[in-house]
């Protein structure tokens, strides 16, 4: 499926990022380069700003200081190109409980404008996350873990190359986690980017870790504004 254009280099660079929430400085001076093939795990205790950083990365919010660049250009100048490569799985699963898993996935495929062999691909994706046979049930009949798996089925359906996942492993059983790890490895091997926050230990060769506690704002920065 992937043509040469899709195989372009991907590079996200964070330049001296600081984020705050409700007037409270979470972290500052964060600079990272993320390139094709990277799996980046964000670490930090609850409230360290992992979700805030991930939301900045998908341009749902803006960092207080600093700039995020995609392929050398600021995000807002390159938003269409960036978002067409982006898959974001937030704190909220983004699953409509009235709809069935297949219908939910059909909507996501529609947003990507991608309907080649759609039904077949949805079936495969649901099989991969262990929801085969549930495709036509309403999602409110599914358990919390199963609902999470519907959202995770997007990882098998979407052609997006940049995955930004906020706690994707919550409510997932051990076998499921192992399977997702393999999926992350596959994605990274095919030149994709995975950025995720999780408290689980991941067993991946290409794993990079960033601990937000290393970027706590220093007291004199707090005193001097920024």
């Amino acid at each position: 499926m992937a043509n040469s254009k899709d195989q372009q280099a991907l590079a996200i660079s964070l330049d001296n990022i600081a984020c705050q929430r409700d007037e409270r400085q979470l972290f500052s001076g964060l600079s990272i380069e993320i390139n094709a093939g990277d799996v980046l795990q964000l670490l930090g205790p609850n409230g360290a700003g992992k979700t805030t950083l991930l939301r900045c990365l998908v341009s749902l919010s803006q960092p207080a200081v600093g700039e995020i660049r995609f392929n050398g250009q600021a995000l807002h100048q390159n938003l269409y190109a960036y978002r067409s490569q982006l898959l974001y799985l937030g704190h909220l699963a983004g699953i409509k409980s009235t709809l069935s898993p297949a219908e939910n996935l059909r909507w996501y495929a529609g947003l990507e404008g991608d309907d080649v062999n759609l039904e077949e691909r949805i079936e495969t994706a649901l099989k991969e996350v262990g929801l085969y046979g549930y495709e036509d049930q309403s999602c409110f009949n599914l358990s919390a873990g199963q609902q999470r798996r519907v959202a995770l089925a997007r990882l098998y359906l979407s052609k997006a190359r940049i995955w930004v996942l906020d706690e994707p492993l919550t409510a997932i059983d051990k076998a499921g986690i192992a399977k997702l790890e393999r999926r992350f490895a596959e994605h990274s091997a095919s030149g994709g980017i995975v950025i995720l926050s999780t408290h689980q230990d991941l067993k991946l060769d290409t794993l990079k870790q960033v601990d937000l506690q290393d970027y706590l704002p220093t007291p004199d920065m707090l005193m001097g504004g920024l």
Partner: protein
Amino acid sequence: MSSSLHSSNPTVGKAFWATLKRDLKIAIRHRGELANPLIFFLLVITMVPLGVSPSPKTLAMLAPGMLWVVALLATLLSLDALFRSDFDDGTLEQLLLSPQSSYINVMAKVFVHWLTTGVPLTLVAPLLGVMMSLPEAGYIPLLLSLLLGTGSLSLIGAIGAALTVSLRKGGLLLSLIVMPLYVPVLIFGASGVRAAIEGFAYNTQLAVLGSFLALAIIAAPLAIAGALKMSVNN
């Protein structure tokens, strides 16, 4: 975002249809909520002859204004739910993250709102016109003015709904934001019907309602998308 509006981009249409289909399906599965504004419309209008006067003369005088005011309130009642469930389950942020311009997706959502509230209200209105002893000359203008007017009501109301979606108790604020913007639509809608009953031409009022709608189609989705981005960013 301008590149996403480029006409040669086939995925714009697909995103619109995907959101339209999804929201219609959800609306059909929540039939109870769908009936809410209609039942409100029906109940209030049936109360008028009981509460005010059953005399056809009085009712005929009240009919155009009453039908319009209640249709407007029924729309207002339905607004809070417009983005609420999407906001709560996270599909709203997914919608805003779609590479397509939010204009397209927002338009699809508001269009479904109009199909499921504005159109049914318009279709029931003549029936309630009978209860209000609306003179014969008033039916066609009532239908036309509501058809055009409810489109504007949905679009304008969605701005208010988008602004207040992140507030837990935004109901009152929503009404306060939206009501003043509804006044012009109400004035021209009701006065068109009244003019027709009194034997005057009503095409001026319809033209004004049409231009409100045109303006709302162009501008409102941008405002809605902007407001939604703000609401999600907290």
